[in-house]
């Protein structure tokens, strides 16, 4: 009786161990097949872009491609800055101070992607003199904040820094 029990226990252990080790192996095999779809090394290497901004006149903006998305770099005029700063935060669907959204108030750097469904908004359009998304009618102000329309949040600010007065490094 005792012997029989021992035998079954050992059998159970053997089978359990086989199943466990096998399951670990299958898990380990699956990972490369999943991970191969993540951004590869060459994509990650392009994660930063340096942009020369010395040629941009006040009031004008350029659009550069970063990680496959447009980034708006706008040199704002005094009046645009003032307008962005004086807004009452209580009026905003997504309250953010303009100062929180820029590093130098003259330069607005943001992802040019509507936070509704990913279209690219048009510059200098809309009821708030900022951007207007033609897809579903979202209005953004001169700080890229959502003011009216279906978009839930302000346009995103990417990670960036001023390398010097003429160059911005995005990413």
């Amino acid at each position, binding site marked *: 009786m005792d012997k029989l029990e021992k035998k079954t226990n050992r059998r159970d252990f053997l089978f359990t161990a086989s199943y466990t080790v096998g399951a670990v192996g299958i898990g380990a095999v699956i*990972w*490369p*097949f999943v*991970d*191969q*779809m*993540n951004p*590869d*090394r*060459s*994509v990650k290497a392009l994660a930063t872009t340096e942009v020369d901004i010395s040629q941009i006149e006040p009031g004008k903006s350029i659009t550069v491609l970063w990680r496959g998305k447009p980034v708006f770099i706008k040199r704002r005029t005094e009046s645009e800055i003032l307008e962005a700063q004086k807004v009452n935060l209580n009026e905003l669907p997504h309250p953010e101070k303009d100062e929180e959204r820029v590093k130098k108030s003259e330069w607005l750097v943001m992802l040019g992607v509507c936070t509704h469904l990913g279209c690219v908004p048009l510059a200098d359009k809309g009821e708030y003199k900022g951007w207007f998304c033609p897809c579903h009618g979202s209005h953004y102000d001169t700080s890229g904040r959502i003011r009216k329309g279906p978009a839930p949040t302000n346009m995103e600010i990417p990670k960036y820094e001023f390398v010097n007065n003429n160059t911005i490094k995005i990413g």
Partner: protein
Amino acid sequence: MSDTPYVPSSKFGKWFNDRLPLLTLSAHLQDYPTPKNLNYWWTFGGILTFCLVTQIVTGLVLAMHYVAHADLAFDSIEHIMRDVNYGWLLRYIHSNGASMFFLAVYIHIFRALFYGSYKSPREVIWIIGMLIYILMMATAFMGYVLPWGQMSFWGATVITNLFSAIPFVGEGITTWLWGGYSVDNPTLTRFFSLHYLFPFIILGLVILHIWALHVPGNNNPIGIDIKKPSKDTVPFHPYITIKDLFALLIFIIIFSGFIFFSPNVMGHPDNYIQANPLITPTHIVPEWYLLPFYAILRSVPDKLGGVILLFASIFILLALPWLDKSKVRSAVFRPIYRIFFWVLIIDVLALGYVGAMPAEGLYLLIARVGTAYYFLHFLVILPFLSRVEKTDPLPLSISEPVFGGMPKPAMMKSDKKNKNE
């Protein structure tokens, strides 16, 4: 196939099974009575299924990164090798997987030849298997073109030019195959498309192959018909599954050895040079698994003759069940056939060897003798042998190795009677 029809235990199971009998199928696959004396040569069916699935899955993810364009294909492969996460692993599994697939399929085929698994009532299994093998060769050939290296390009050029040997329409066929006047971008893109398609046709044929197998049941090393289920059989699960798994793991260890420690040994260095239509490599060889056929092709001095012989050497296998008429299946009980079986193996290996060598001098002579013998084996030796060979007595069953001592044809008849009961 089991005695009592399967009834699912749960109510939902019964409801579902009445509408789509998947549970009956799964019960059949588990209980499927299998001869208990199957040796390790029989594990290659499972191994081949693993190979096919591995090739399909790795191929699927490689296709996410590969670019089928003459200007970009080579670089996209290197992109996979260098930048894609685990890309080198996936590609080496896929490229070495092709070789392992053929290694396994050759063992599987020669197992069938040795134990007479192609004989009645398993002719359809054999023919489907041969169709799978032919499609495998086509798939592997087109896959080898995709990296767009020198061997890819010139291999494609040489093989597609085979069709130009056909009288009158040959030129038209090659132009049609190429989509141009030489192997070029249109050829590459269509090969990619077909290379993606064929494995799924193979998968369909594999299902038919297994279906056709499950009608008469497995052959076995002593090649006699057995009662199913009986003392001579075991349920497929867990007995055969665990044995197949063990063999598969040994196979994967060898496979891993290639992938991780000599991933390029089965390939050709020239394929790491981008295709160049102006320079032919000094020595064009196909992948190792096609070498015997390549030797047959080159053994004939005539272009059309070589091509005909090449295709004949493959298609002759389809007729094998009617060339070898011996009632005794297993070579274990066929002392003379057994010798010729080994001679055939040596012949095919020798053909493979000279296929890799320049077609001149002694090599050419060996190729010619080998080719002649290959056809001799199937067209003369087998039909003749099945009439004159005196076979050893067969046992009555697997469990009781009692020899019947009767003449074989009577033996076979009595076995068949048993089965029909």
